[in-house]
């Protein structure tokens, strides 16, 4: 396969390929973080995760139209405002859904699966009714398009860099929120022992709502960022949901670090195999590997070591 190429060419391609793997890693982390928070911390299987992402994408779409029409001077920075709004919109909807639907089902975790799946169908049809069945095109500011050419072959996509930076910021933010802040402490307390947490004065209902909203909000940001690399349509959320669950389950549901580790493992495996094999085959092999490892470690890569 490589006989016809010079070493420089091969070196460049492997550098590019490594970078492609890192971009995929960032995309996976961004997709999965919101779900991992909700699934891991609350035990709720949020099948509507993809639709919360697409809510963020549609918010970005509306923002881009708004800025083009009314504030063309600020168009180059609209993306940041769109992401903030996407977080707020998806988070607010998440809080509402938690209040209206999820909190009634905490004692029946499997029913949340059905309820959130229904919610995802409702949201899809709502998008279809509001925005139309066709995909919408989100106009991006020029500085987010194109690539930086390092050499003749090595070209780094700017939107890939952007996603990587964004993922880093969000991951660090989530780390501080969950492990260094009062809210995180309360959340972890509720996860570990709900009754006890309530007894020491933590408003567990409020913590649940905030956690759910946070997960949905991060999904919104992810959706907003993915307008750079993917499609925005009523059912586009479905494109991400399988990978997202795969990552969270593989990483170990209760561990955010596990989510990151599993994103890394799956993204590297997939992008390497895609390079050497064909796309569909790479997917099959990735899934087989994941199934194999999950058979050996049903809890996923990282699990809490607690005696049950």
């Amino acid at each position, binding site marked *: 396969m490589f006989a016809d190429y010079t070493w420089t060419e091969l070196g460049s391609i492997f550098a590019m390929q490594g970078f*492609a793997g890192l971009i995929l890693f960032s*995309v996976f982390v961004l997709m999965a973080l919101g779900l991992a928070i909700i699934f891991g911390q609350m035990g709720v299987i949020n099948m509507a995760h993809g639709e919360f992402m697409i809510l963020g994408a549609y918010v970005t779409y509306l923002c881009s139209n708004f800025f083009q029409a009314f504030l063309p001077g600020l168009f180059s920075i609209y993306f940041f405002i769109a992401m903030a709004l996407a977080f707020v919109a998806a988070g607010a909807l998440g809080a509402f859904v938690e209040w209206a639907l999820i909190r009634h089902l905490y004692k029946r975790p499997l029913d949340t699966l059905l309820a959130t799946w229904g919610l995802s169908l409702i949201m899809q049809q709502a998008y279809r009714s509001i925005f139309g069945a*066709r995909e919408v*095109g989100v106009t991006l500011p020029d500085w987010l398009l194109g690539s930086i050419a390092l050499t003749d072959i090595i070209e780094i*996509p700017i*939107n890939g860099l952007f996603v990587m930076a964004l993922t880093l910021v969000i991951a660090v933010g989530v780390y501080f929120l969950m492990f260094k802040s009062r809210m995180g402490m309360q959340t972890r307390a509720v996860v570990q022992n709900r009754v006890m947490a309530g007894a020491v004065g933590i408003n567990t209902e409020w913590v649940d709502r905030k956690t759910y909203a946070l997960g949905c909000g991060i999904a919104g940001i992810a959706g907003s960022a993915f307008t750079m690399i993917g499609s925005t349509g009523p059912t586009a959320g479905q494109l991400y949901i399988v990978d997202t669950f795969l990552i969270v389950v593989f990483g170990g549901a209760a561990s955010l670090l596990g989510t990151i580790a599993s994103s890394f493992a799956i993204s590297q495996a997939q992008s390497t195999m895609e390079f050497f094999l064909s796309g569909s085959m790479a997917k099959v092999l990735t899934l087989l590997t994941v199934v194999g490892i999950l058979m050996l470690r049903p809890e996923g890569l990282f699990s809490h070591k607690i005696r049950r």
Partner: protein
Amino acid sequence: MNNKSELKGPTASRRGLILGTATAFALSAFSQIGFPSAAHADDVNTTGLAVTEDTVKVGILHSVTGTMAISETGSVQAEKLAIEQINAMGGVLGRQIEYTQEDGASDWPTFAEKAKKLLVNDKVAAVFGCWTSASRKAVLPVFEQYNGMLYYPTFYEGLEQSPNVIYTGQEATQQIIAGIDWVAKEKGAKSFYLLGSDYIWPRTSNKIARKHIEKLGLKVVGEEYYPLGHTQFNSVINKIKLKKPDVIYAIVVGGSNVAFYKQLKAAGIDMTKEKPVLLTISVTEDEIRGIGGENITGAYAAMKYFQSLDNPNNEAFVKAFKERWGDDIVIGDVTQAAYLGPWLWKAAVEKAGSFDIDKVRLASPGIELTTAPEGYVRVHENHHLWSKTRVGLAKPDGQYELVYETADLMEPDPFPEGYQ
């Protein structure tokens, strides 16, 4: 109760017969003084279809919900427009067309169920519908069992020819061969990288493409398929960069399309440059709306229709379409093909002088449409259309600019040699 109905039956039919005869007399009298002849319902419909003295019922069967709604909406709009226009011109054999619309909901068994409902319960005289090959394959046995007539609008992989289907889109060889000939001749292309979503249409199409490329003495340097809905193309883009093909031949569909073109552009593959040339058969103006014109500028598409075609038929069609469905609408290849369906059916019914499926089928080959927005089309013996293939260049505004069209109509060849 039983008794009563037995008594009622013959009386009713006798009354019907008398009434019918009277009408027939009246009508034949009219026709003698130059009134458009509207034959008696029984004469033009011997198989119990939903045809009355002044109406005929047809079915529209597309997904308006689910994943495929994005693609099929345009076809529904085109079919309704054609039906309305035909009605405004006086209908078919003097009968106004009424349509029953069913939703296939992007679910293939639902398509089959709804097709059965249209044929058995509604007794429609023709169905305009389906989009994906999977939905067509699902309804095919239903149409063949209950002897219905389906007008199928999408360009597709071929390898099929049913007496109960008229294929108004191009089959694979029509779309592919002319496009590859063009890119080899005009762009001096020597090497091709074939890429597609992983299902029957892209795979069959690429098989035909590969065969033709090799016949021309050119080289295929890569062939790859990605699962439907795949959103990460960076690895394959790297491979393309390594192999440096003259042509990227892309048959990616659906949401993947958007991801593919955005990432291609982000990776610095500039399609407006001399090389590589990107040639696609899967991106119509409809898809460009989701992709964004700026992300696909410079790509070439080989198909039979572009909204920008400059001819009086198309001008009138685009104007009528926009008046009916809104100014910001775009019209892609399949939408135009869907528009042909009702017109081809009308022509066949009028040639046959009957709504009977068997007679319409016999009358269909040889039907010509000089008013088609794409220009002139003719129905082949094999139920596909003779049509021209065109190559368009994608522009930032989301439209294609016509750069080439075949001099002659391309003959449809759904069973190319070596594929059976």
